[in-house]
């Protein structure tokens, strides 16, 4: 498969068909003598910002760390082994409600959406 054409920037779905963001980045592991392989899918504003430039990446990392703590400085990583199916969208064998991916959405719901009867 062509990674740029078929994988990068494509929609991710969890096992219930809930949209989980797009594939913002891919982690490649390279070592001497071995065929390079993709180990993780990467998600997050920090990944996207870095694609725009290293300065942009650093700024967004700082903002993320300030609002969400040090761990938010790093991308969300999903092991490649979690992929269930690759088609028009990429389906994962994960329940998004149980994963850290829902953290921001849950926080928004608690603080804002629920207050207005959403």
């Amino acid at each position: 498969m062509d990674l740029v054409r078929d994988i990068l920037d494509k929609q991710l779905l969890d096992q219930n068909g809930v949209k989980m963001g797009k594939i913002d980045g891919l982690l490649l592991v390279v070592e001497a003598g071995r065929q390079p392989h993709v180990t993780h899918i990467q998600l997050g504003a920090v990944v996207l910002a870095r694609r725009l430039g290293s300065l942009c990446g650093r700024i967004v990392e700082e903002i993320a760390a300030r609002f969400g703590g040090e761990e938010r400085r790093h991308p969300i990583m999903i092991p490649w082994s979690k992929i269930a199916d690759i088609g028009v969208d990429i389906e994962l064998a994960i329940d998004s409600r149980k994963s850290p991916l829902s953290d921001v959405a849950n926080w928004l719901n608690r603080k804002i959406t629920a207050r207005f009867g959403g």
Partner: protein
Amino acid sequence: MKKLLEISLGIVTSIGGFLEAGSLATALQAGAGFRFDLIWAIALGTICIAFLVEMSGRFAAVSRHTIADAIRERFGFNFFLIPFAATLVVNFALLCAEIGGISLALQYATGVSCRIWGLPVGALVWVLLWKGTFGFIEKGVSMLGLITLCFVVAAFMLKPPWREVATGFLPTLPGHDLGKYLFVAVSILGASISPYLFMFYSSGAVEDEWDESYLVTNRLIAGLGMSFGGLVGIAALVTAAMVFLPRGITEIDSFDKVPVVLNPVFGLWGFILVVSSLGIACLGASLELSLQQGYLVAQGFGWNWGEDLPPRADPGFSLTYTFTIAVATLPTVLGADPMRVTLLSTSLTALSVPLGVIPFLFLMNDPKYVGEHRNGWIGNAAVLFIVALGFVLALVTLPLQMFGS
């Protein structure tokens, strides 16, 4: 049978939803300032948006993707930012104008200043989206928009010289004020070909779960709906030409001149019809624009989205439109003149339309997304030509207008 009902509903929705602050203001200005000479601009804009809307529906039905989705997926995030940013800005400017339009309508109806109506209007738009479903908003409000047909009735009752009206379909140069003429032409094109119109249509098609069996339905809705909608716009132009021009009113520089335009035909009811048309048309556009901002951001980043979902199922989407509506009330509240905001946003649109349309045209020719339902050369050529025309005219006339007025 069910499809027939859908087609009828779709056409009615398109007609009811066609007029809004921009198309109304520019049509009235065109009629008052240049009689029937600018009918060709409305016709050209309508043809272009009909093509784009049909492509948009076809794209969503075949690829099961929305346009914003597909632009990021096909061209990558970095490229996507360009049409994304341009469309965000233009949509926002338009939304400010529409909220201004609703507030003005309420001002004319009640005598209370539109600045006070700004926040309540924003709250109304928000509540309808927060609590409503896609079907209710699309069909319900657009059906109410049929009130704008009062312009069509008025245009006939005013007995315009039909031969001269027909000549207006052919582009001519005016006898006076070339700069202003071209500026109004550009504004008409911008009001007709707003990116939110065809992007929203693809999101709607996905919300309604269209598939390949809807291709004919789509063609009929886009073709007939937009064409009849364009006729409403032309009717508004003809009405303005027959009412304003003979009375020496050639400049519609404020919406304040507008509410009496149908009085010669309907008496006091004319006032009620115009004010209602303005308010309802702008309400429909506000709802669509707010939703489209939400769609654009949510689809670009891959978040969950859907007007039929409760807000807690798609908080990113819901809070995006919430935030947009809140900020878009500010110009009205702060006293910005709705007419100036409207004309500014239509010009901005004409300038930025190529950024949204060109990637979309690439997608419409990509077999990976639309399979064998690719664009024919006519569609490509028509859209490219009209969009390029609008862009060039905007480039030429905007500086003139900015420094002239």
